[in-house]
């Protein structure tokens, strides 16, 4: 079977043995998503491509991915976000706060998301799930995730009581988890 038809775990084994084609396959599968996150967080096409390259080279050089700890997709989006935060850290102290949950890698789980559903399907599911959230919850989640704003900064920005911000943020995540339950089991 062609390497390109194999599961992420098998392709990763090939990558660990120094197969450059395996890296190309991962780029084909996830390059656009990594770029998507990078562009949203850095806001600049050149920087986003630069970060995308850094993420895939990190995968290539360190080979730290552990399939028992979650899917390649989750690994790469988490890594991208963490590296985007690294780039901002010198500029904005607030990004440090985000480190706490980006370095919190998902614990052991052997399920492989991409073996079940295509990236487009997952993207569509997440978009629909987000669209179901009350607008305030969605906005607060995004301000927190992409812009690295603290709860009190969001509270100031939206002129909303701090307690409400906290509640919306938590409820937003819990609601998403409920809608996307089959993707995160």
């Amino acid at each position, binding site marked *: 079977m062609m390497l390109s038809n194999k599961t992420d775990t098998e392709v990763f084994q090939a990558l660990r043995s*120094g197969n450059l084609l395996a890296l190309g396959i991962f780029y084909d599968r996830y390059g656009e998503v990594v770029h998507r996150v990078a*562009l949203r967080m850095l806001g600049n096409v050149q920087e986003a491509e630069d970060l995308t390259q850094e993420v895939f*080279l990190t995968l290539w050089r360190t080979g730290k991915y552990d399939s028992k700890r979650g899917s390649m997709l989750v690994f790469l989006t988490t890594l*991208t976000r963490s590296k985007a935060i690294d780039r901002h850290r010198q500029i904005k102290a607030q990004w440090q706060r985000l480190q706490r949950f980006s370095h919190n890698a*998902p614990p052991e789980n052997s399920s492989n998301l991409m073996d079940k559903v295509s990236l487009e399907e997952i993207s569509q599911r997440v978009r629909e799930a987000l669209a179901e959230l009350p607008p305030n919850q969605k906005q607060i989640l995004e301000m927190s995730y992409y812009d690295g704003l603290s709860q009190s900064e969001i509270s100031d920005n939206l002129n909303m009581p701090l307690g409400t911000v906290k509640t919306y943020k938590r409820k937003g995540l819990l609601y*998403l988890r409920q809608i996307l339950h089959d*993707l995160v089991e």
Partner: protein
Amino acid sequence: MADFRESDELKELLASYVFGDLTPEEVAAVNELLATYPELNDEVSRLQKTLALLPLALPETTPSPTLGYQILQAASRTNTDSPTAISNRVSRRTKAWLAAVGSVAASVVVGFGLYTYNLHRELVTAQTELSGYKQAIALLRQPSNRLLTFQGTDLSQSASGSLVIVPKSDVAVLSIQNLATLPQGQIYRLWAVVDNKKVYCGEFNPDSEGKVFMQMPLDDDMTVSSQALITVEPLKRISQPTGKTVMKGSISL
């Protein structure tokens, strides 16, 4: 009494934990809870994954078509931290044989990776990418890199190609030019000749330009064989060639 593990308060606490919004004292308390009730770790994991899926809702982007190529080029200049040995299924005899050609084959690995990778993309629009192809093809075409050289028989005089063994990737790469397209219901098959027996190695059809570029898992028969044949066969898999031989390959190294 309701199970506190199902309570909304706990779920919200775990959500804040995943966000990193808790005070150090609260974090310590949650860690203690997780140690006492390990099943709660599953919920934490689900929340972390939900959060990691969030950016998929972002609109799709179009990275530069050459980005993948640039990444592979950069990667080819750096090694992984932990290169591992060739797969165990390669026999000792094969290893000896591979050792002899290893240095040559290794030199085409990079070109092979880039070339095949790009074939996968079918997005050969940018000129830079095209020049990447040409470099890779040139690498593969260097006479010293050919392990088995193929020539068309009288039936297929203009066809030529090569089979390159790439031990580092544990694959063999077949590359052919000017091979005629077959009528429906027929396919080309590659056979290694081992001890006068023909052993099936793979099957393929050329593209509209008569080109074939495919990789196959490295097989002992393939590596010990000094001759190979390509025949025209019916689609139905038969263990021996039945059709006409259109190309012959022999070791050229």
